[in-house]
């Protein structure tokens, strides 16, 4: 087998064994954490799915990371945000901050909901996950700038951004904004919940930063030809 398991045949094995290498042999397949896939009965499988199942019964499978779950409450965007907020590999603290943020946002909105008159109740959004996703959407820039060298000088050229890059920029701005521009005694989850609620209603510093980027790109429209891809 081309898999790098021959190391385990050595007489001495190190005390700490790496379970999931980042450079897996391409022979290994990805694990499937979702429960619904395994509940489909034999008859309803498409030919591709049948083929995939047969392949999985012969090939080795990579170990699943700690962050994937088969839970119904698993959210990949939120997991990415938690990873970006994490410092020094301390996922427990980062996850704790995010759960406190979600709780704080929900408390503020539900309190407003219960105190609002009947007509206004339908407009108040109480779901913290919906608020988080919408706020992130509102912070994503549409167009970005790249520094391109032409004739000895560097110009800021407007370029299209991929989806991943846009999501990354939105999350990065949100986190840096909450870390830098807060009072010494405000806790992170409090500031984060304020910023997310502001971004949900298209106000706040992060949305302002997105607009400034758009304005810069608009003003540097003339250099768009310097882009060659």
């Amino acid at each position: 087998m081309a898999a790098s398991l021959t190391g385990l045949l050595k007489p001495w094995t190190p005390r700490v064994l790496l379970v999931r290498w980042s450079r897996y042999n391409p022979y290994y397949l990805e694990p499937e954490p979702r429960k619904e896939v395994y509940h489909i009965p034999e008859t309803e499988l498409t030919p591709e799915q049948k083929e995939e199942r047969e392949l999985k019964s012969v090939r080795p499978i990579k170990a699943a990371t700690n962050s994937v779950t088969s839970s119904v409450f698993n959210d990949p965007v939120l997991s990415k945000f938690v990873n970006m907020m994490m410092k020094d590999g301390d996922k427990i603290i980062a996850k704790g901050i995010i759960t406190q943020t979600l709780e704080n946002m929900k408390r503020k909105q539900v309190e407003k909901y219960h105190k609002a008159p009947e007509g206004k109740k339908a407009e108040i959004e109480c779901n913290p996950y919906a608020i988080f996703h919408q706020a992130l959407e509102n912070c994503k820039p549409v167009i970005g700038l790249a520094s391109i060298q032409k004739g000895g000088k560097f110009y800021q050229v407007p370029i299209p951004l991929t989806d991943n890059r846009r999501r990354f920029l939105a999350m990065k701005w949100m986190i840096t904004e909450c870390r830098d521009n807060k009072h010494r005694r405000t806790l992170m989850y409090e500031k984060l919940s304020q910023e997310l609620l502001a971004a949900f209603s298209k106000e706040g510093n992060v949305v302002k930063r997105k607009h400034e980027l758009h304005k810069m790109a608009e003003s540097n429209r003339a250099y768009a030809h310097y882009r060659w891809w």
Partner: protein
Amino acid sequence: MLFNRSLPAPARPSSITTLDGSDSEYVDNYKYLGVWLDCKLSFQTHIKHLQSKIKSRISFLFCNKASFTYAAKHTLVKLTPSITVPSVLSPKPHILPTTACQSEQHLGQYYTVPPSHFHTVFPHGLPPRYQQQVKTFNEGCVMVRQPALELISHLKRADYSKPTLRYLLYGVKGSGKTMSLCHTVHYCSTQGWLVLHIPDAHLWVKNCKELLPSSYHASRFDQPIQASNWLRNFRTTNEHFLSKIKLRQRYVWTKRESTEEGRPLGELVDMGVSRVKSSSDVVGAVLKELRLQAGGTEGGFRLAVAVDGVNGLWGRTTLKKEDKSPVAPEELTLVHNLRKMINNDWCGGAVIATLSQTGSLYAPSSAYLPQELLGEEGFDSMDPFVPVPVSLYSEKEFESCYLYYLDRHWLQHPHSQTEEGKKELIFLSNRNPSVLERLCAFL
């Protein structure tokens, strides 16, 4: 108007002229002598007008739904079928009447504590997460559970001329001991008892910045801040008793200050709140007076001593004297006086206590039984007591809690409202009330 009972509503006739040439107006309904008449000579229009008048007058009743019994609300809604009233009876699963009439059939259902009671009965007793929940939901609902009902039934049937019975609530962490205690305190308060609620006895044996040597007894220590805080809350809870109870003894505080016999208790409490230095001794005096007068036949009141975290009174403290030697709990005035209160040498009331590992000192986190948490000394002092076990939610109670959160729009994640999500919640929380509450907080 043209009156006709048998035929359907006639078409409008051509205009009718009166004798002096003017046109008379044709109407369908007309009010005459206080009654609305219509073409069919039925009372429908009259009833409709009355309903709209009633609706505008009694709409305030539907807003203050907490003040009415279930039966009254049901009658109100039945009387006014056409009035669309915002959720008097539904969708909240069950809203119950006062604590006195709760019984076995109400197990698992929620009852609402009137908002006015929160400031008077519970200035300091409720768990902090529950206080946040009350603020968010804009109302305070407590689930009726077996331990609290058992306690209340014991309190109803006890003989108050005999020495006091001690009740001890015990259970694993997060099973609802403090909430059961608060339920019982609310019951006692509504029945007119004098309630002595110590929110957490552990607060008196740790984290004390100022430890003064006691003026009354040389080897003891005073805790002025904790004592004055507690006195202030005691005053809020029992306003109406303070002027009725008279002191039976003269208390001398300093060379110039003393409280005479026959003065009302309120004066003593006010003095303790204002003169922080002698507040611990004031607490001791108040407890002694209440102990003496609780079972009295003339103007007798019933005294409920509710102590949360009673295992803090025995064991060790984290406080140190000036020479860095540890302070034993009996060397603190507050603890000494409270221990005398928990003894069963007085009559006319009850002692309801809760064990707590959460704030305790030097106790392992897996300990929850009375023997483990109280220690030998504590168990011997509390013995004999009535143990009341508090278990995790049963299936019915879990259902009720889940429905309550759904009703209050607290479970917002779309998957948490499905069967799959509910199974996952049961699995993750193991039906532990506090773990479930923390899970549902961010879902």
